[in-house]
């Protein structure tokens, strides 16, 4: 990778050469490797090196954005951005570039993860496949490792740099009519125990074979963390966005200080929390600040970038996406506060309900109400009199997430890290007293 000082020098010379009032250079470079397997075989295996130089300029309030993935074309990208800005009309949302603040140093770089080669990934995949074969199952999934560095330099004096690593393991197994899955994520490969994950999935795969039909309807549910994660992703997508909130498109719009969901629910975003995948600043170079979106069911805060903060007469919380995206600021380091229960205790406390491993291909049906529809996948079980009675064929849910969380009666103390909204999130399992299943499928 390019040395930090060379990146700063390149960005500095672009800013010096820029005729614009404001110039911002966002740089990202990295290596990404992914080993994918199916039918107990590595069938796709990729290794990639890429970079981005993204330039935002403004002449007054006329803004232009251009990017290239080649450093030698950075000056051309600057010229393109200037050309766009010169002929553009005034932006009503551009609020200038942020001024420098020193971000807190965070460590999220692991040499061993960055240096992991294809053979090491294959060895770990082999461990997963061996567990699957022992269980008479077929394994699929992927193991990825990546390392990257990000820098933001702007004409107001921001000069920041961070390097990080990331790794993710996704394991799926299938046997007869049964299946199971597990996801493990972090910034240190050594923290991922692929054998343990595979054993868990193999056990679940055996237990989900020969699922039975039950009728859709309202059920109490025990949601494993990966199922909660899907709902959290849509909660964040639909409403935890300073722009959507400002435009009154969010369930949080005008609700600060009001109860929006159940009292067990506390949702935060914290880019500096070492239990997630920390990153010290956003794509504008603004330091990450902790945001408490929902505290014990009450709407308490929102995330902002420079533009939405100005519109709301507040400060950026360090949640800007890159300037070529108009989606608005989003939480990329989400946390759902844990409770004091366990999945076992939740099951034991359920007279009649369903244990849900994961939801699949969910989508927002009504954004303002956070109504989400999707399917169950990788294990759905009927719980009767405090015990798992039998596996159930997959069902469709159509559920208002805020109402589901309103009915939450317990959260697990243990949380799991998984892919969030463009970053990582840490969520517990949850028991909801009421959850609506609206259809079923044939397997």
């Amino acid at each position, binding site marked *: 990778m390019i040395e930090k000082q060379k990146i700063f020098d390149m960005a500095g010379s672009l800013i010096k050469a820029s005729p614009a009032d404001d110039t911002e250079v966002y740089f990202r470079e990295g290596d990404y490797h*992914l*080993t*994918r*397997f*199916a*039918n*107990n*075989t*590595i*069938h*796709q*295996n*990729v*290794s*990639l*090196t*890429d970079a981005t130089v993204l330039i935002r300029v403004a002449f007054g309030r006329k803004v232009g*954005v*251009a*990017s*290239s*993935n*080649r450093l030698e074309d950075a000056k051309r990208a600057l010229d393109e951005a200037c050309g766009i800005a010169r*002929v*553009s*009309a005034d*932006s009503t*949302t551009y609020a200038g570039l942020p001024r420098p603040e020193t971000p807190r140093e965070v460590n999220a770089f692991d040499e061993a993860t960055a240096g992991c*080669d*294809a*053979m090491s990934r*294959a060895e770990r995949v*082999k461990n997963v496949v061996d567990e699957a074969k022992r269980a008479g199952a077929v394994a*699929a*999934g*992927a193991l*990825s490792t990546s390392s990257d560095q990000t820098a933001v330099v702007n004409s107001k004096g921001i000069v920041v740099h961070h390097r990080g690593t990331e790794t993710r393991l*996704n394991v799926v197994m*299938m046997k007869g009519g049964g299946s199971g899955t597990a996801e493990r994520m972090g910034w240190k490969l050594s923290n991922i125990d692929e054998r343990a994950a595979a054993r868990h999935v193999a056990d679940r795969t055996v237990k989900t074979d020969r699922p039975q039909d039950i009728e859709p309807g309202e059920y109490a549910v025990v949601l494993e963390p990966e199922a909660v994660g899907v709902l959290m992703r849509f909660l964040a997508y639909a409403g935890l966005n300073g722009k959507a909130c400002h435009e*009154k498109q969010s369930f949080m719009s005008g609700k600060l200080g009001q109860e929006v969901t159940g009292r067990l629910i506390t949702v935060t975003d914290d880019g500096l929390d070492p239990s997630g995948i920390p990153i010290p600043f956003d794509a504008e170079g603004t330091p990450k600040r902790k945001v408490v979106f929902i505290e014990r069911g009450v709407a308490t805060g929102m995330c902002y970038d420079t533009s939405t903060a100005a519109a709301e007469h507040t400060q950026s919380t360090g949640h800007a996406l890159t300037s*070529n995206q*108009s989606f608005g600021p989003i939480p990329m380091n989400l946390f759902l506060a844990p409770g004091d229960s366990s999945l076992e205790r939740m099951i034991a406390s359920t007279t009649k309900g369903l244990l849900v491993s994961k939801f*699949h*291909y*969910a989508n*927002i*049906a*009504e*954004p*303002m109400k956070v*109504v989400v*529809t999707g399917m169950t*996948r990788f294990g759905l079980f009927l719980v009767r009199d405090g015990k798992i009675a039998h596996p159930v064929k*997959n069902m*469709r849910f159509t559920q208002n997430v805020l109402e589901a969380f309103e009915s939450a009666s317990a959260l697990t103390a243990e949380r799991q890290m998984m892919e969030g909204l463009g970053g990582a999130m840490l969520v517990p399992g949850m028991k909801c007293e009421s959850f609506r299943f*609206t*259809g079923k*499928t*044939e*397997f």
Partner: protein
Amino acid sequence: MREFCEKAVNLIRMRGASYGDVRTARQREQHVETKNGAVESVNYSEDAGFGVRVLVDGAWGFAASNRMTTEELSRVVARAIEVARASGTVLDRRIELTDVEPATGRYTSDCAKDPFRVPIEDKLAMLLRADRTLKAEKAVTIAQCFLSCFETEKTFASTEGALVEQKITETGGGLCATAIQDGELQVRSFPNSFRGNFATRGYEYVEAMDLPGNAASVAEDAARLIAAPQCPSGRRTIIIEGSQLALQVHESIGHPIELDRVLGLEAGYAGTSFLKPADAGKLRYGSQAVNVVADATEPGGLGTFGYDDEGVPAQRTDIIREGIFRGFLTSRETARVVGQRSNGTMRASGWHAIPLIRMTNVNLLAGDRDLDELIADTSDGLYLSTNRSWSIDDKRLNFQFGCEIAREIKKGKLGKVYKNPTYTGITPEFWGSCDAVTGPAHWKMWGTPNCGKGEPSQTARVGHGTAPARFRNVEVGVLK
């Protein structure tokens, strides 16, 4: 790029791969968006690099880089070989490719007006005109107008002697009017939701859409929707408008016919398929009215190209004929498993990605009914337009779609507007309930610019030709 590719092929051969290919690609994109009377964003991006794919002892390896130098080429070829050797350590089945005649040639998509040469100020002026019309309707809280253009130049060469060059230009755009009132949000889009419609055409395609001229009716619909009653639930006859039917085809036909899904190769992420290899030629997928082809040669289709990313020439193949399932979308690897030849559907989202089986233009062929006549022939039903949400299980059986708007059909006439319509079904049962497809006058190509698949995630631009069609006894309005 030819020289670079030839060098890559020689290096792959020297390093002992049984097969190898190289793809260089240069892509540029421009996105222009307005919102509520102002410029929301204008951005331009360029992206270039190359990817090397090798087969060593029956195992795949792929490496790619943005640095197009001779030194980097050597490193990347070596890395691809190293990755393939690692793949070979976890291999239950050696990968073999079906034969293909090595292709040589050049393909350029239709483009009458280079979209990158149209001044940005002209694009903004057109979008802002449409925006003003949208905002003239008081109920419209948020007016958004979009246009995008893409240009891809790529060269493919293989150790078998293939060498093809392609230049593909894609454009598109659309409008979206959002009405928000009392905690409720309704959206109306033109010509399609999620940023409009797209084609392998030049800027003439955007001009022909006449976004300003269509803005008033979009705004009126948004105003009607925010005041409309909830779509009633129940088993109904429905007529599905073309753009919604395009997504229905995409999700419940396009994905399940991908042979990699059928063979379990996507089980770790998107899922598999309810179809089995033996179903080809036997399974009843739909009614006699249902005829579907995969056609990468359809002029202007968003899934139209000259060659796929394995160098296989673009083709038109039967998918469903008179309701009977005929065959899958295949690659050289998967076709070999079922004893066939590739029908040329392997595409990568860029130089940095491996090709996957992707839909080309999966088209529902036109029937022979007139739309007005079909509505007149429907005593009690709903006319559903424009997608708002979609979801389907991992074998592509149970689906649920939400639409932007429903119109009641009573005694053969379109009646009142309903909001939040949804419908749900099981794939073969649903297509089996199709009793009429409208004729060629109503048939149109729809571009889906955001089809996600694979790990690392890839986005493909694919097409679907459809004409409005009628379905009987469909479960409608499960949302409360």
